[in-house]
């Protein structure tokens, strides 16, 4: 099976005034269709940086990042935007919903940006997803009227509404209590298994990690291994002590 994300020998430097901060130093990674992968590593190890490169919101200093067969370093900004809209779904740590739109409108928004579906089709798609994330009764609520877990479920629905090939989630559970966080990961796993959507999410939390199919360990901008969740959890727990 062809890799949906293919990263080879990627470096990423940040320039802070005159100081160069190397965030990624030679990452090579393939992610295949339908995988449910966690990226784990200590704070500052480069998880967010890596997800940003895969998510086409940033470009590598060196090396090739290709998403859905396209070399993202060679695409102009408007094409990258299209790629993000049609191929990638995003779930953010702090939910990032549009405050003035209600739940239904937030989830519908990417479909409006695409402009492909009729109002009736959009409605069916959005309500179907809200059903799956258990928020069908909250369609007309504003984000401010929801709990953190509910908001993140809205964000999950929004990320999936365009039926993207990959969903990226940067610490999706970090702002949630552990039970709610587990529920979100369970929901993501369920959608992954039902629809075959590829999920890549980063986390610190061993409890969250263990739901993943595989865990990519990253430290200091380098991949240190690709292991099973159990081993990773053990490792993380050990590292914490």
């Amino acid at each position, binding site marked *: 099976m062809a890799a949906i994300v293919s990263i080879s020998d990627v470096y990423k430097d940040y320039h802070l005034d005159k100081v160069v901060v190397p965030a990624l130093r030679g990452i090579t990674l393939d992610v295949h269709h339908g995988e449910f992968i966690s990226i784990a590593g200590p704070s500052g190890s480069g998880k*967010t940086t890596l997800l*940003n490169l895969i*998510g086409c*919101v*940033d470009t590598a200093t060196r090396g090739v990042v290709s998403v859905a067969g396209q070399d993202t370093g060679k695409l102009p*900004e*408007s094409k990258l*935007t*299209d790629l*993000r*809209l*049609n191929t990638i*779904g*995003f779930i*953010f*740590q*702090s939910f*990032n919903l*549009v*405050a*003035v*739109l209600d739940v239904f*409108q937030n989830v519908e*928004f*990417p479909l*409006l*940006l*695409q402009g492909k579906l009729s109002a009736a089709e959009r409605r069916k798609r959005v309500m179907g997803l809200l059903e799956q994330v258990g928020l069908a009764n909250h369609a007309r609520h504003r984000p401010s009227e929801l709990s953190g877990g509910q908001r993140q479920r809205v964000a999950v629905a*929004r*990320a999936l509404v*365009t039926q993207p090939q990959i969903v990226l989630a*940067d610490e999706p559970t970090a702002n949630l209590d552990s039970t709610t966080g587990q529920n979100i990961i369970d929901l993501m796993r369920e959608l992954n298994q039902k629809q075959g959507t590829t999920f890549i999410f980063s986390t610190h939390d061993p409890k969250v990690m263990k739901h993943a199919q595989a865990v990519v360990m990253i430290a200091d901008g380098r991949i240190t291994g690709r292991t099973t969740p159990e081993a990773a959890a053990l490792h993380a727990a050990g590292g914490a002590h």
Partner: protein
Amino acid sequence: MGQLFLIAFRNLVQHRRRTLLLGGAITGVTLLLVLVLGLTHGVSETMMRSATTVSTGHLNVGGFYKVTSGMAAPVVTDYERVREIVKHQPGVAFVVDRGRGWARVVSDTGSMQLGINGIDIRQEKGLREVLSITSGNLDDMAKKNGLLIFEQQAEKLGVKVGDSVTLSAPTPRGVNNTMDAVIVAIARDVGLLSNFSVFLNNDGLRGLYQLNPHTTGALQVYLNDIKQASQMKPKLRQALEQAGYTVMADDPRPFFMKFDTVNREAWTGQRLDVTTWEDETSFFSWTVLIVNLLSGLLIAVLIGIISVGVMNALWIAIRERTREVGTLRAIGMQKGRVLMMFLIEGFLLGLMSTVLGAVLSVVVAAVVNALNQPVPSAVQLFVMSNTIRFLVTPGAVTFAVLFLTGCTTFVSLFPSFIAARMKPITAMHHIG
């Protein structure tokens, strides 16, 4: 895209205080702009209407007759022949002849120096519509010593209908002559113009100035369309020259300001002069100009202040919503749409506020017009009328709404551009 309007609108509602403050300011400027336009329009309208009946036609054929080179009299001799020529020009509706002069009007208790218009009441079609007679009867102007004055003059002179006054004036030959006139009608003031002039039976005026029956002051020409006046002017001059008259060089000033120039020239005999109503009232039009300049300046300053306000508010809104912008960019919104989103916010704020301002201005204008309150005389000088009258046209309202909405939208461009240039990566980084 409808959702962008919804987001913009809801964000405006969300930040109620900021929106009300800015929107209120824009509403205020719209109100002011429409009222100022309505005022200057009203003033020009009033000026045109009263001027073109009280003291000038749409076009005038006047002129000077000089016995010696330094003694100019503002008369047209053998005017019937001139009238025949003028009457048959295309576009001419009707022609009246008016006597012209200055005289001291003396009553038992006071006296005033006034411009005298000699009229033949049977010819005066427009005068009946413009003058509203508060006492007496306009038809009595047919009497040879009939005099019509305005309310303010009647008050100053302490006279009423039926009273006699004495008119005293120098004749073209240089001697003083007097006549007794009877006040047959008193009319409501028509602004500044009515402060300086009265109407006297034309034959009475000829008697006062010892003019022969074939002499008059000027022919006031009324056209089917007043807008044609400046185009008609050279045609009329040409027609008169072809008929053998000497026509004075074009001089866009009222006749009473031309004596000095004419007296300095060496010629004697009759020369004709053709002027438009605008020439004859150019003396007054500076008021409209000043009102326009001052209000233009005021509005420019206010628009400047509002522009800074709108830019600033939008700039704050964008800073507050940095994460939202980053998020939307990350989930696939193109730069152009982000630009539109904020531009629409400025546009909506502008549109809603200006429409409200326009509605308010129409109400205020209607109320002020209905109150018909007399204004102090200093203001009267500016507004050319003794009451303030706003003439708010649909055109002026549309202009104010479009122009000010355009301004707010335009200044929104700059912050919106900055928002559109923000990188999606800020979505993950910006805290708050």
